[in-house]
């Protein structure tokens, strides 16, 4: 029962949040925190749990955003169905990149670079072909209704991204406790040893990349429906890959709640510093300074703060 205390308490707080903080600004803040937590968790289950570091997770994010948007704008398919199609497309791209890379023995920084290359290739491709709108991007027609995944009020988006965030944490919890998760941990710690123990490392790595791709792509669909406009730079750009990696690193890689903590802190710092100062670039300097401090003093992420606290209590 005690194992469920943290997720249940977090869920209760998250459910109550928009009922307590009712302004659109506060709800938008909550949406951004959960959104970054979802895509950060997508990176974390591959990079943190399985040790497959990626610099190009935007490839999955963009695939998801473009998949549901093209289905919706060009073929008239409802974006709620598009969400599932995006997850499937993200899983396929994840499995494809993983199979291709791992078949040729790419690992570590080489794998990270190949993911970056794929993200860039997808960006250039979407820029070049007509049906993706090229550099013009795709504008989703404004038609506000929940049935159309365009909630008239932000609170609808909030609960949708909360559901995705809850799912992402459930996946992380499952990975912590399942045999699949244990096999991934073995691969992360020592892939040769894992193989010697009889683990099919290729299959396990492809599976986790597919899962990570699916979750990240679902985040891409959410982004497209929330902002109603996507273009190749916005969704396949290196910025998105870095944001996913950053929330996970700052919060704590390979942990269940690290991406959520990282997303909360980085969004808070980003919004806070912007609100505090209008001096050109000062908010980014403060943001960067804070990141350096966190990385210097908490190399395992902010989750260490909580561990220390709990550790002291137990002692």
């Amino acid at each position, binding site marked *: 029962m005690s194992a469920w205390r943290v997720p249940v308490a977090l869920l209760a707080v998250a459910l109550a949040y928009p009922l307590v903080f009712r*302004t*659109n600004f506060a709800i938008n803040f909550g949406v951004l925190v959960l959104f970054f937590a979802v895509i950060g968790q997508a990176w974390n289950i591959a990079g943190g749990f399985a040790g497959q570091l990626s610099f190009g997770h935007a490839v999955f994010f963009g695939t998801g955003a473009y998949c549901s948007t093209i289905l919706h704008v060009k073929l008239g398919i409802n974006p709620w169905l598009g969400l599932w199609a995006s997850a499937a497309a993200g899983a396929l791209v994840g499995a494809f990149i993983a199979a291709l890379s791992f078949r040729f023995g790419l690992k570590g920084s080489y794998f990270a670079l190949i993911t970056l290359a794929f993200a860039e290739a997808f960006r250039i491709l979407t820029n070049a072909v007509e049906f993706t709108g090229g*550099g013009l*991007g795709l504008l989703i027609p404004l038609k506000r209704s929940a049935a159309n995944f365009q909630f008239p009020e932000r609170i609808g988006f909030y609960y949708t991204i909360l559901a995705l965030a809850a799912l992402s944490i459930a996946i992380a919890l499952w990975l912590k406790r399942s045999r699949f998760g244990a096999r991934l941990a073995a691969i992360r710690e020592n892939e040769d040893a894992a193989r010697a123990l009889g683990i099919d490392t290729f299959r396990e790595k492809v599976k986790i990349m597919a899962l990570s791709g699916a979750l990240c792509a679902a985040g891409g669909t959410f982004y497209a429906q929330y902002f109603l406009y996507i*273009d190749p730079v*916005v969704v396949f750009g290196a910025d998105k890959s870095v944001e996913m990696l950053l929330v996970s690193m700052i919060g704590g890689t390979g942990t269940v709640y690290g991406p959520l903590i990282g997303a909360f802190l980085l969004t808070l710092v980003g919004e806070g510093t*912007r609100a505090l100062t209008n001096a*050109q670039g000062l908010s980014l300097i403060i943001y960067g300074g804070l990141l350096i401090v966190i990385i210097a003093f908490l190399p395992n992420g902010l989750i260490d703060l909580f561990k220390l606290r709990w550790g002291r209590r137990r002692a």
Partner: protein
Amino acid sequence: MSQPSHRLTRRGFIGAAAAAPVAFGVPTLLQAQARPIKVGLVHPITGFLAYSGGQCRMGAMMAIEEINAAGGIKSMGGAKLEALLGDNQAKPEVGVSVVEQMQEAGVSAYIGCFSSAVALPATQAAAKYNTPFVIDVGASDNIVNRGLRNVFRLKPGFNACVDDAIAGLGEINKAAGSAAKSAVLVHEESEFGTGTAKLLAGKLPSIGIEVREVMKHANPTRDFANLALRIRGLKPDLVVMSNYQNEYVLLARTLHQQKVDLAGMFSVLGGGFNYKFVKELPDVAQYMIDTNHWFDPTNARAQAMKKRVEAKGDLFTFEVYLAYNAVKFLADGMERAGSADKEKVNAALAASTWSDHFMPYGPTRMVNGQNTGGKAAILQASKTDIDVIWPTRFASTKAVFPKPRFS
């Protein structure tokens, strides 16, 4: 019985001084002073569009200071405009956050966003509150054609600029005995460059100019050597460019360094075509032609503002006067609305026939939020200045076309 003392003590004096305004009704006057009207400026102040965003902010702030110095919005009891400054970092999600943040702060209207990718979601966010949003810079026609009743744009969009460019280029080329018969289009990869190039590719043949190739480049690109070699190989009469500041300058410089002979270099909304370019690279800039937003050079107020900006050591770029005029347009709407009520201001802006600007536009005529009176000008750089060469009624000089050859 002692007489009451009439001696004024220090304590008594302070007390009387504090009480006097109450007795004379000063608080009533203070209450009557109109509350400031908050105007949100949503520009990219950091990131790769920081320079342009900073120029927009400067223009908007100059207009706000001018309006306040002239007594504020008179129909609202002299209410002053108060700028809320926001940095959208050229990111859609940040733009939306800034809009929400300003809404919490009680904003009455927005000015922004320079980037179309930010303007699209930011205007939508503002539409939830029906808050007026005046686009100062942002070329995409999608910004104003989605039926959002709170969005207005004073300047012309892609389509209108390209139409003006084609009309003007057609006339200039005809006057030069059709010196240009072929062109290569070079554009940056985002919505601005791609959209402009797509329209140009479709319309250039209508004025007898064949498009030999359309070339796209990434943002940022710092080496145009290969692209220049390809252009040289294609031997076009014209190179038509649509790119942001740095890429515009670098491409022009590379073509000049490689001595690629052309009848002319023409651009539509060329991001780098400004006084800075002329000042820093006069040999490269000379004879280059651009279709862009430009002030009416015959307007004395425009020239006075140009001097004020340059006196501060800044450049009078299109961002400055577009943002300046966008704020003035908004203030005129508020003046006529006589209230900061969003519905009333939106209605006043939609019905606007404002002509107190210094753009070559004539009175504003809003259709679906777009000023249909907006017009781009065709400009040509000399070694020291930029002149309007089309439309002829605003022209300050005649076009030099075709330009002298290197060989």
